[in-house]
Every structure is written in C-alpha cells, then in structure tokens.
C-alpha cells in the first residue's frame, strides 16, 4: 500500500484508501521487512492496533474497473484459500518481532462480482478451517481471537472496524 498522510494508505489498485489514523499504531510495511530480510514469508496488507486487539487485514477487490487481474481472481480456489490462511500465520512472526501481545483478529476484506453475504460466509468457513482455532482449543495460549470475511460496505458499517474507513481515494490527498 502507498502511504499518504500518517496512517492513511492507498490500496494496490489505487482506488480505495484505508484510514487508520484512529489506530494506536498501524503499518503496511510487513512486506518490506520480509522481503528485505530475504525470507519466503507472506504478509497481510495491513496491521492496526487498538486498545483491545491487533487487527491483521488482507484486502482484495475484484469489483472495480481496472482491478488487478479480476478474471484471475478465484476466491474459492484451494490455492487462494491456502494463501489467505498462510498470510495470517506468517504475519504472526511480525507481531512477535514488534512485541505485540494483544488478542489478534484477522479480517479479509473482499469484493468480487455477484458476491453475497452467503458467499462470504462460505469463504469465511473454508478459510477458518485452516486457521488455528481448533489447534488452540484447550490451550492456555491463543493465536487467533476472531476471523471475518467482509465486503467493503460491511467493513465500513462494522461496529468496531468502521473506525478505519475504507473509502474511494479523495482527490488531491496523495503525498
């Protein structure tokens, strides 16, 4: 993501911006750190910290003009599902390095043609099967607190995540 003003980022297609200025701390630099270190780790697009939790956010929008390879976007493919799950696990290393110890929530913001609430719930359940929910049951520690798959409008209407609005890029705000 391209960083604008402090805590405001433009997504890969240049159409939407994510405003995390209300977060205690935020970054989109996981990728740069992993890449510079020469690792094979995958990263979520974004991290934000609130008083209560750490939010890992992965964003994909195949529903806009000139979206990066929209026809190639197959949200339910095994490869894509595995990739989304893997980004979570790999990003936990970054949180450890940053000594972030709060409960971790993972949100996949995704929009694609003709997607419905039911489609996103199916996607949520499929990915959730690969996240460490079952593994952590009965254990003292917890790797993941919650996981959601949301459309952009669901994200912006969420009782907690609406504090970080995802909106069309405003004219003239690029730095």
């Amino acid at each position, binding site marked *: 993501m391209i960083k604008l003003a402090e805590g405001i980022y433009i997504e890969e297609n240049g159409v939407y911006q994510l405003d995390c200025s209300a977060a205690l701390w935020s970054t989109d630099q996981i990728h740069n750190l992993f890449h510079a270190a020469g690792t094979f780790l995958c990263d979520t697009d974004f991290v934000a910290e609130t008083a209560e939790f750490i939010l890992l956010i992965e964003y994909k929008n195949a529903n806009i003009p000139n979206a990066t390879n929209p026809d190639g976007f197959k949200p339910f493919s095994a490869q894509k599902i595995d990739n989304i799950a893997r980004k979570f696990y790999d990003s936990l290393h970054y949180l450890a390095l940053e000594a972030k110890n709060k409960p971790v929530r993972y949100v996949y913001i995704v929009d694609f043609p003709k997607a419905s*609430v039911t489609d996103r719930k199916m996607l949520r359940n499929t990915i959730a099967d690969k996240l460490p929910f079952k593994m952590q049951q009965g254990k003292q520690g917890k790797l993941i607190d919650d996981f959601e798959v949301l459309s952009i409008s669901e994200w912006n209407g969420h009782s907690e995540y609406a504090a970080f609005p995802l909106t069309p890029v405003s004219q003239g705000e690029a730095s």
Partner: protein
Amino acid sequence: MALKKIYLENFTVFDKMEIEFCEGINVFIGENGTGKTHIMKLLYAACQSAHASKKVISFPQKIVQVFKPDHSNISRLLSRKAGNGSAKVQVTSGKNTLRTAFNLKTKNWDAEVVGAQVWEKQLADLTSTFIPAKEILSNSKNLVNAINVGNVDFDDTYKDIISVASVDISRGPNNVQKKKYLQILQDITDGKVKYENEEFYLLPGNQVKLEFQLVAEGMRKIALLWQLIKNGTLEQGTVLFWDEPEANINPKHIPALVEILLNLQADGVQIFIATHDYVLAKYLEIRTKDACTIHFHSLYKKEGKKESPIEIESNCNFKDLANNSIAEAFNKLLDEVFEQTTKG
C-alpha cells in the same frame, strides 16, 4: 405475448398483492405457505383459458381445476380473513387484462369474468406448460381416464402435463440450438424418451427400454424436459411454469439445467419457477448475462408476525434481496458451522 402482471385481492393467503414480471425468467422464492405455487397456478389457468385449441373453459373453471377446492367450489379460495368481501384475480398481458371476482356466495366456478373475449383473441395461440413438483409420468397409464371419470383426484396440472408429454413426435425446426439442448439432456439421462401404449419409457443407449417407474425420479424430470423440447411444446412465444425443478435432481446436474433454462429464455420462452434451492437460484443469477432477463420475487411475512399479510420484494439480483428465505437458511447453517469450528 408475455405475461406482464398479476393482481390478487383476498385470494388464499394474499390480502392485496401485485407483481410485475419480466419477459424472461421469473423466480419465486419464499417459505412454505407464502403462495408461490398459487401464483403460478393462477397464471397457468389464465393462459390455459385462452388457448383456442382447448375446449371452451373459463378462467374461473380452470382455476377450480388446478386448485381442486372441495366440491369444486371457487369460494373456498377466498381468503379466510376476507369475511364477506370478494376475491379478485387480474392477469395482464400486453394491454389486456383478464379479471375474475367471487365471494362466499359464488357457486362452483360461477365467478364474474371480465375481458375474456379480448384475452382469448390475444392469446389464442399461446402454449403454456405447467410442470408440477411431483413427477407423474411414471404413473401416466390410464391416469387421465381415471381422473376424467372421477376415480382419482389430481389437479389439472398433472393431467395436462401427461397430455402434453405424450405427444411423441419431433415438432418444429430441428435447429442447432434445439439439437444442443437435446444432447445435453440426453447426456444427463443417458437416453431418449418414448411414449408407447400410454406409458413412458426411457431408451438408454443400446439397452432395452426402461419403464419410467424404474428410472430415478430426477432423471424422469430431465427426460420430461427433453420430451417437451423435442415435441415443440417449449419454443418461442410459449410459457413454462416449473414448480421446484430442483426436487430429486442431483446438484451436479443443476448447471446443465440452468443452461437449458437460460437458452430457452433466449429463444423466447417466458419462464416461471418456484424454488427452495440455493444452488439453482445462485446459478441462475451468476450465469445470466443480461440481468434484466431474470427477476427474483421473494414472498415473505414481516418477521415475527404470523398474522401479517404476505409481502413481495422483486430484484434482478438474488443476492440483493433483503428478504431471502433461502439465503437466510444457508447463513444460519454457515454461522453454526463457524461457531463449531472456532469455539468447539
């Protein structure tokens, strides 16, 4: 000419309802008891009362024959809440509207009818077909005669489909499109339909013919579609009503079924479907190239109000229906699965 609109007042579960249709595919969804099949039967009765080749049958009489109220009394179809009021049914096609009205005092099918002459003139050549939810061709032998003499009690949708399907000829142009339909359906059923001595058979490849009773119900439904396309019943300018097409059909065949329906629509068949099936509804939504050629009509009651009237919501996109009983059922299941996965 396509059916454009229906208006109902005090008819069975309906207080007041008006629905506008598209010329393409109209899909009714809703919980049991919200009147999906009733609407389709009324539209079918309106079409059937116009067809010039049929014996003269009035709209109210056909309504009685497809609904089968006790003692053939149309007044039984008056909404229970109507009290001493009247029921009204109005079906519009083009600029013409066929109307009927009745009340508690109406005997048999002696209901008031307005607009019948113009309606019959306009729709004289209209062929309409109603495929009921329960497959009946496997019981066809002697069934029509038994119904006619009153030995068994089936509504006319069953009798009519047997009559239509028993036309065992290849009618109409055998064009590339028709051949494509027939091939798809033949591949699914692995055979062709034959009507012989008042019974239906499936001819699977090189094997001997199979009586329909021995064929899986889902396959019989697909085979019926094959027969209706082959004998020219489903072609441009006709109307198809299909109640729960998904029943007994393996979900893996739904995409092929949807392709057939979309091709029929593109060829000028107006289609009405009632469904409870998420897979069917979703395939119809995503495979439709022009959103204006499909309308989803959701019939529902306001949440938590058993006595509230049936309401209607229409949308070109299945996913955009605010009242979507199919999606709601799926969402509830998905949430329960998620709860189990994440919390154990």
